[in-house]
């Protein structure tokens, strides 16, 4: 049997908001190409866990490993760590002043500094394929215009 490389590991993660202890000793391991589903009642802490993994919230204690590297806000440049993690927000938090395509290529071009033309070419297949785009279109009134232009 083929065992995949471990991508993400969480050990004994705890997080409270004031008196509200949301995450209690969370352990989690995700291997390469795993698809993991978190199920829980509303308010049970799914978003909080994801936000901790992307360092938008800071854990109280416990450990987060990304590809066997223990990540701490004190020792790591979090912007660089976040470049290795993709995340979709509960409310999408798309950029309303940008087109669908511009939303997709924003990070590759301005964070990863890939060439714009190359990225525009890469962006195209996603944008016709993905269902995500359908959600995006809802927010972007002029996305149809873009579709016709691209």
């Amino acid at each position: 049997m083929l065992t995949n490389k471990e991508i993400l590991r969480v050990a004994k993660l705890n997080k409270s908001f004031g008196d509200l202890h949301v995450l209690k000793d969370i352990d989690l391991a995700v291997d390469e190409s795993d698809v993991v589903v978190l199920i829980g009642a509303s308010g049970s802490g799914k978003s909080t866990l994801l936000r901790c993994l992307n360092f938008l919230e800071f854990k109280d204690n416990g450990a987060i490993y990304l590809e066997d590297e223990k990540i701490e806000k004190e020792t790591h440049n979090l912007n660089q760590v976040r470049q290795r993690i993709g995340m979709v927000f509960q409310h999408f938090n798309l950029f309303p002043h940008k087109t669908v395509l511009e939303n997709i290529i924003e990070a590759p071009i301005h964070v990863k500094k890939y060439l714009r033309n190359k990225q525009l070419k890469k962006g195209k297949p996603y944008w016709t394929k993905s269902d995500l785009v359908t959600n995006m279109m809802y927010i972007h009134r002029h996305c149809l215009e873009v579709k016709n232009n691209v």
Partner: protein
Amino acid sequence: MPQFLDKIIDSVSHFWSAFTSSYDLFLEGLWLTLKLSAASLLIAFVIGLFFAILKISKFKPLEWIADAYIWIIRGTPLIVQIFVLYYGLVEFIIIPPFWAGVIGLAIHSGAYIAEIIRGAIQSIDKGQMEAGSSLGMTKFQTMRRIILPQAFRRAVPSLGNQFIIGIKDSSLVSFIGAQELFGVSSSLGSNSFDFLTFYIVVAVYYLVIVLVLTAVVNVIEKRMAKSD
């Protein structure tokens, strides 16, 4: 009744002849008003953006600096600020009227613009900053590429309003000797003792400037609404 009509026709033709005989002087004044306004509002915008960012800074002393600036400038009349620059500083530095006016108007409008931009920035959903972070963008990058473009769109109506105020406020620079629109009308008024006519003439010039600027702001607003 005909007498009454005669009077109106008289006044109108009097106004018209004052208007046509003075337009070369007024056009020079208009040009100076536009230069004063454009230079001061451009600088005011930069000042405003700078202090808006200080104000939302998490580092308290920076916020206090912005608070102090806004408090002092909003708390004192523009004419006092212009006089301080022009007459008050005469022992240390002699600033020509045009530049004293530009600087005075710029630091004055800058305080109001700072508050407008700060409000617009804070009105943007904080999820936008998080979204930028989650992509690995720095705070500065997210501010420049995500937050500010959206904030400016929201600020357009208030900024337009502030620019209109700024243009009309430039009339105060006539009190330190600049022959801008209002200065021209005062001179013509005192030369002819026909103050009423020339103040009405100058009012018409200001009305036209504001009309044009309002139209420009409306077009920009419509453009932005379309691309939102």
